[in-house]
């Protein structure tokens, strides 16, 4: 099973990279963009085939290492 983990700064935490990308899009005349958030994606190839167990395990990985929950949120997608 594959786990796709998307990590981004929490709402309310200023995302300087997102802001810079937003400015760049503006200067390229891509109008109509309200907000840009830059995050990172971590893709894990898992041995586990049970979805529930996989979700538990990856959640633990996020809490302990993959995300810093002081400033970041994470979303896990299993495929």
């Amino acid at each position, binding site marked *: 099973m594959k786990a796709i983990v998307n990590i981004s700064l929490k709402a309310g935490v200023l995302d300087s990279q997102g802001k810079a990308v937003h400015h760049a899009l503006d200067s390229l005349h891509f109008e109509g963009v309200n907000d840009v958030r830059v995050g990172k994606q971590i893709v894990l190839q898992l041995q586990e085939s049970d979805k529930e167990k996989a979700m538990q395990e990856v959640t633990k990985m996020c809490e302990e*290492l993959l995300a810093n929950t002081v400033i970041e949120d994470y979303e896990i997608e299993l495929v």
Partner: protein
Amino acid sequence: MKVSILQFPGTNCEHDTEYAFQKLGATTEIVWHKSETLPLDTDLLVVAGGFSYGDYLRSGAIAKFSPVMKAVVEYANRGGKVLGICNGFQVLTEARLLPGALKRNEGLHFISKHHTLKVANNDNSFLKKLNVGDVVNIPIAHHDGNYYIDQAGLKELQLNGQILVTYCDTNGNESNPNGSVASIAGVCNKEKNVFGLMPHPERAMELILGSDDGVKMLQGFLES
């Protein structure tokens, strides 16, 4: 006075730190991150600056799982004095020994220059040789130095006198190079035995290199 200095793969300020503390009369020992114990006679443990594990994932995120960190946490929880400088500060926040987190600088650039700092609290073993409001000139060199803490956390820091130094101009007025919340450059834990700051006092030990204000800062640890 014995100062033990942690060295991870990618640490690059351990020898400057050693030089600085030796200059102040301390004996020093560099401790490789694979060690599961700290020297028994350690009076101060310094997590030195650099780029532990290449800053992969997040600055300091991987170092917190090095074998030595278990001993560091135990040492800190027993009341042992710990100082994290730059990447060391990032490691200590990642390890949750200090509150908050360090984000990418607001301007996205790596900043390397001298910056003035204002002492916010001196009621601790680190800054007791300085007065509140004193301005010191100390180099900064970081990409992820933008200190973040939520409003409730900030209030607690203020209430407990945990803010050590803030960024300021040469007159002591607030001047923020990296977007840190409340211009915070360094904090300590509630118990006031774990200290972290982004600026490098160990690089400001003699006037010929631009400033010797680091002496006044680090000296606090040498006198009980």
